[in-house]
């Protein structure tokens, strides 16, 4: 099971992660962060497949991912 953490104050609301997520489990939130951006949030954490694409495409290194137990490694990154 993987766990995504999006740092609300590093996100600039660019939506790249939301559009890139293959499972479409991310969404733009309704809260504003310290810079006045609507930041991205994890809508359906349990459906995350741990592929890390959101982390890879985030231009602001705002997304980190941790997993518990074994995880299928899609690709070496």
């Amino acid at each position, binding site marked *: 099971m993987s766990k995504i953490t999006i740092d609300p*104050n590093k996100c600039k*609301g660019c*939506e790249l992660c939301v559009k890139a997520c293959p499972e479409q489990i991310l969404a733009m939130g309704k809260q504003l962060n310290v810079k006045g951006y609507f930041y991205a949030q994890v809508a359906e954490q349990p459906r995350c497949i741990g592929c890390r*694409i959101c982390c*890879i495409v*985030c231009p*602001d290194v705002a997304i980190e991912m941790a997993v*518990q137990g074994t995880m299928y490694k899609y690709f070496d990154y």
Partner: protein
Amino acid sequence: MSELTVFKRPEALLPVTMHYCPGCTHGISHRLVAEALDELGLRERTVGVAPVGCSVLAYDYFNCDFHEASHGRAPAVATGIKRARPDLIVFTYQGDGDLASIGMAEIVHAANRGEKITVIFVNNAIYGMTGGQMAPTTMPGQVATTCPLGRDTNLAGFPIRMAELLSALVTPAFIARGSLHSPLEVVKTKALIKRAFQYQREGTCFSLVECLSTCPTNWGITPTDSLKWLEENMLPYYPLGIKKTPEGKEA
């Protein structure tokens, strides 16, 4: 059950917010360079050179020694550092206005001398920091603040393919072009960047990775549309892949 972190900020990036516009892929190439430095264990003996351009503030983001260079002169500054301290890993991080316009002589001659440095060349087909002027890499017909009716190739010529241009030099080098507009291309570009630094670590040759990048603010479109614009307009003109390797053949 222990929790295993599988993705986090690389150590070579400082825990600060970068000034880049929302959706600007500079942030991605910064991370790729930092990940390469971490994974190759080079950070503590690396010196970066950031010239004028959006990335001039890169010295605030990397956790390694840095020089801020005047516009176009990063390859010369890097030459000075590398010749003074050949044991250090030296890289420049340059935009297209900096490298392909005012700094053309510096990049061509650094490559031709075979300086054992690594150049990260971010090509977003426009001048970012100064507000969206036409760059040598601006596409034909692309609108910029100094070609408001679109780049007229009769007046301003055609965009310059730097990777190909530099590959024509005889001196051995590793030259490749990647892109940051899709997860797959980001992963492939990371491999290119890592390989470039490996060539430097082994003292083999000059290395340059051109990274196609977006500029949502100055292109005037959303970050996600910018990815599509890059794919539809820049990709056909700037083919990706390895252009030159020190071994001479497509390795």
